[in-house]
């Protein structure tokens, strides 16, 4: 089995008496997008900075493509693209010059550099803005430019710290598509965000961290099934509530029924076929269902159920 692109092993970071990160471990495979979620001050940025070779752990290690970032920082930097939460700008510099500088810095020469810059500019849709100065860029454009810079040396692992913060809804959707496209190219992505709805639609796995400690980590599907042993069904019927309640309670696989306002919440244990059969039965009995929703636990609920809102 090949080594994961990113493997964090027992990572801890202390600043004097303050423990920012404590014994955090997880791994990200190629082609996967992993969300890194936690409240403010949870230690997300510290962990990401250590992964990106910008800081050193007190204990533990981070392996990029099987090699320690402590022992081989240069090796790691070649493979990592780190996107900080804000784009640092250079005064009196155009977008093209900015990308040109970082392309030179990453060792790209001559035509190869020009082609690479054109390629990332096209991918991030910055091609028409290349002569524009950096000073007056919108947040969306800044994030695109930051991503373009991150992609210049064609890294296999992307570490993105709050890339969607400050973006308008349209820009968020576009940015999400870019990230998905990068994962489809086989790149591993570790992304932190406060906007959990964003991550839930993008991520294959999540790492939940709070107070510097790892709370949970794993594939989203696994965590969802871990958290909810039973399916939750929401429905509303126009028939008399008592009749509906009784009918639902009689059905196989139904464990519990409760009323919430005009809705019925049904705790259900069964397959998708069983759920379809339940709905068919409601129609057959003329209970007049007008709303039927199979509720799956999303990232937000996962996050809230795992964390306690502790701040460091």
């Amino acid at each position: 089995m090949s080594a994961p692109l990113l493997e964090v092993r027992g990572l801890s970071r202390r600043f004097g008496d303050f423990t920012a990160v404590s014994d955090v471990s997880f791994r990200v495979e190629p082609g996967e997008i992993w969300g890194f979620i936690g409240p403010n001050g949870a230690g997300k940025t510290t962990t990401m900075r250590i992964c990106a070779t910008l800081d050193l752990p007190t204990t533990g290690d981070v392996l990029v493509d099987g090699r320690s970032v402590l022992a081989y920082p240069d090796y790691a930097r070649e493979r990592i693209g780190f996107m900080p939460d804000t784009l640092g700008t250079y005064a009196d510099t155009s977008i093209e010059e900015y990308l040109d500088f970082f392309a030179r810095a990453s060792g790209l020469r001559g035509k190869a550099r020009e082609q690479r810059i054109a390629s990332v500019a096209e991918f991030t849709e910055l091609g028409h803005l290349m002569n524009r100065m950096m000073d007056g860029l919108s947040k969306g454009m800044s994030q695109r430019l930051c991503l373009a810079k991150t992609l210049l040396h064609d890294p296999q692992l992307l570490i993105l710290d709050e890339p969607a913060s400050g973006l308008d809804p349209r820009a968020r959707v576009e940015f999400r598509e870019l990230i998905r496209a990068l994962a489809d190219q086989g790149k591993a992505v570790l992304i932190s965000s406060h906007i959990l709805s964003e991550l839930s639609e993008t991520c294959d796995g999540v790492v939940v961290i709070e107070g510097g400690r790892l709370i949970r980590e794993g594939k989203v599907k696994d965590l969802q099934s871990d958290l909810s042993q039973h399916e939750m069904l929401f429905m509303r019927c126009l028939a008399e509530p008592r009749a509906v309640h009784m009918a639902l309670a009689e059905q196989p696989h139904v464990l519990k029924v409760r009323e919430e306002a005009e809705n019925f919440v049904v705790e259900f244990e069964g397959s998708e076929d069983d759920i379809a059969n339940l709905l068919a039965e409601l129609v057959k009995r003329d209970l007049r269902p007008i709303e039927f929703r199979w509720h799956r636990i999303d990232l937000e609920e996962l996050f809230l159920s795992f964390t306690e809102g502790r701040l460091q």
Partner: protein
Amino acid sequence: MSKSVRLDRVNPVLVKEVRQAVRGKSFRSSFIMVLTIAAVVSTTVLSSLNVDDPQDLANSGTNLFFALHAVFLFCALVVVPVQANRSMASERDERTFDALIISGLSPAQIISGKWLSAGVTQLLFLVALLPFFATSATLYGLDLLMAFVMTLFACFLGLTLSLLGILAATLSKSKAVGSVLMMVFLAACGFSMMWMIAMGQMTMSGFGGFGNTDEFLVIMGLLSAASFFTLFWLHGLAVATISHQEENGMLRVRWAVLSCALFIGIAPLILMSTVPVTPMRFLFQLNSMGVMVLGVLNVPLLTESVGMRVRCRHELESGSWRRPFSWLFLPGGGTAYLLFLVQILIVAIPTTIYLMLASSGSGIYQDLSIYFENGFGGLLATLGVVLACTGVPAAFAARAAAPLWARNSLRFFILTLPFWIVILLGIVELLFQMTGAGFLDSALNPFIAIGDNFRSLRKPEAVLFWLALAGLGSVPMLMHAARQRAEIKALRRTTSESDSNVASPEEEPEA
């Protein structure tokens, strides 16, 4: 070939910095201001010239040059260093520093790029002032050699200050603290400069100082060389500051700042105490002291990194191991040792030139030749002291297996070496007195040998002693280099064996 392709081999930071500097408002405004001041100064000096006064006319070129030189000094010693400081500080303030660190550029490239761009800016100022300087050359009384040496001195000092500015910015986490540090450095150097300028003016006016113009020029040349050496040290420190935390450590930075402050602050005091007595002696003391102090301060470079083995393995595994004699260029000894030797050569070459001039038998050089001929052993003695006192601890500190506390202790020992030498000498003197042998022979006492080197080392046995000490000091470094080479050879062998053990798909036996 496009312009960007032509610039491929140039340091990217240099390209960026020059581009930014030239476009920046501060550079444009200061450039225009300098040109305006130069024009006003030239006009004022020329208009106040009394053509009927032969004395005034005879000094007109010198007067104009000095006035313009003051303008250039302002640019080289204030404007350019402050710009270099702000350029580095803005990397933190604008949050581009992290991107720079992980961009693929080495810390040395980053510092060099920043520093070289300060050099380019300085050059632009100099070029802009050249027409004015040319005007002063067309007048009477300007000694072109003196003008050249003084300009060179300003350039070297300006470059050193720029690097100090960069170092100050790397040491502080905020622009404000960086600016304060910069001001302290500038003030310290300004103090030195005021003294130098005062001495120069005294010399020019015939009130002693260095005795005569030629001596003043020699001093300026040597100080320029000293500034040049200081650059290596400052560069190493700035690189260390932005490198891996484990490698630099706050303790090291503190020692560096302390040493730097001591060097800048104490040097003028020492100079002031020595010059009025015997200018020639001061010259040689300065030379020796420069080599000693700067040699010692350069040693942190020798212990720059302990990651040799790790980085070697990486280079071997990534297939980037192609350079012949690469072991020499590895961190941990090779590079710095070469650099150190280069610096010694930089001292030796002007010394040789002066020796040749001395043998030509003209004017001041005739007097100089006496000292140089008598004192060549003194130079060797100085090298001996430096290598002997720094080689051994540096070699130990550079060992990959050395624990961090041991490395830091050794670095501290090296940086505070003069103090330990004094202690050691005190003990030795005490022992000599206790055994009734009297005081230590001055030729064997490193401080006296350095101080009086060109006088007291006429004894061949003393020269041999110091040469032996030099050899003794350099042996551990050479052994370290040899050990590095052996380790790398072993690593290469291991890597090639493991490569050959990995069967290629074509070679795999069929199931």
